């Protein structure tokens, strides 16, 4: 039984497909906003995660901090209008299991900084909606919600 943060949305990844909520594969929590609007049909989802349950790092590890900095510094600007949303994949309040970047059109995924940590699998998806990119420079998580989701707003 994992300890997923309350209020988060959940996905399962079986190595070849994503399943919203429960489903076969490894379970993650994501920035819930990525599922709360009109979905972008036939979007490209680059899932940088593994199904192996041992593939995990703490969010506080320097490489996991740096990949979030890189996302705000150049990855998201590089994607421009192609970006639909980006979310990390949380295993619990402390551990990082990967990230997903979603775009409307094909991009050069070799640039994806999240793939430095766990390799990417490219999927087509109909579940993700457009979310404004993080304003920066905050890389910390809000009460354990998967970055860049959450806030301390009332």
């Amino acid at each position, binding site marked *: 039984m994992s300890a997923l943060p309350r209020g988060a949305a959940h996905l399962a990844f079986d190595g070849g497909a994503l399943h919203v909520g429960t489903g076969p594969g490894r379970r993650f929590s994501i920035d819930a906003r990525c599922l709360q609007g009109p979905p972008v049909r036939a979007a490209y989802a680059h899932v940088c995660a593994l199904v192996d349950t041992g593939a995990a790092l703490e969010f506080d590890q320097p490489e996991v901090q740096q990949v979030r900095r890189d996302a*705000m510094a150049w990855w998201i600007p590089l994607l421009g209008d192609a970006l639909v949303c980006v979310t990390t994949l949380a295993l619990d309040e402390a551990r990082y299991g990967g990230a997903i970047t979603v775009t409307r059109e094909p991009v050069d995924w070799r640039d994806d900084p999240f793939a430095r940590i766990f390799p990417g699998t490219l999927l087509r998806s109909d579940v993700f909606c457009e979310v*404004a*990119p993080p*304003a*920066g*420079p*905050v*890389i910390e998580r*809000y009460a354990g919600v998967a970055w860049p989701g959450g806030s*301390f707003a009332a």
Partner: protein
Amino acid sequence: MTLEPGAAFPDLDLPDHTGRQRRLSELAAGDPVALAFSRGWWCPKEQRHLRELTALQDEFEVAYARIVVVSIDAPEVQAAFRAGLGARFTFLSDADRSWLARLDLLEASDTLHEPYRPTAFTLRPDLTIHRVYDGYWYWGRPTPEDLRQDMRAISRAVREDFRS
């Protein structure tokens, strides 16, 4: 428009450095904000000051606080400038000067660019003005220590579990 401590700062609606339309309240996202109006990329004073803000982002990134810069540069110019600085915060482009007159922040001495008068505000998460800095003369700008003190005061006031 009154831009004094205690007043509500307007919820600016401008494109960011990628051209995406944003609102200031969305960028604040429940956190305190250091908001800097900047002349533009060409000004040596702005280059110096923004390098200082960029150095400070390493503290903001772990402290649940935001930095936002507004200038009259076009988004693509801001994107290049931001990349050169290594900044990870948001730039808002008022290339159309849509807010400049309403905010009464025109720098009248530069008729070539018609830029913003360098002015900085520290804001509560609800965009209430905490402090104002007139940076027309460089020494009027907030130092890193000024911003630390303002972020501390705002956080102490708005975070229920902040124990002084």
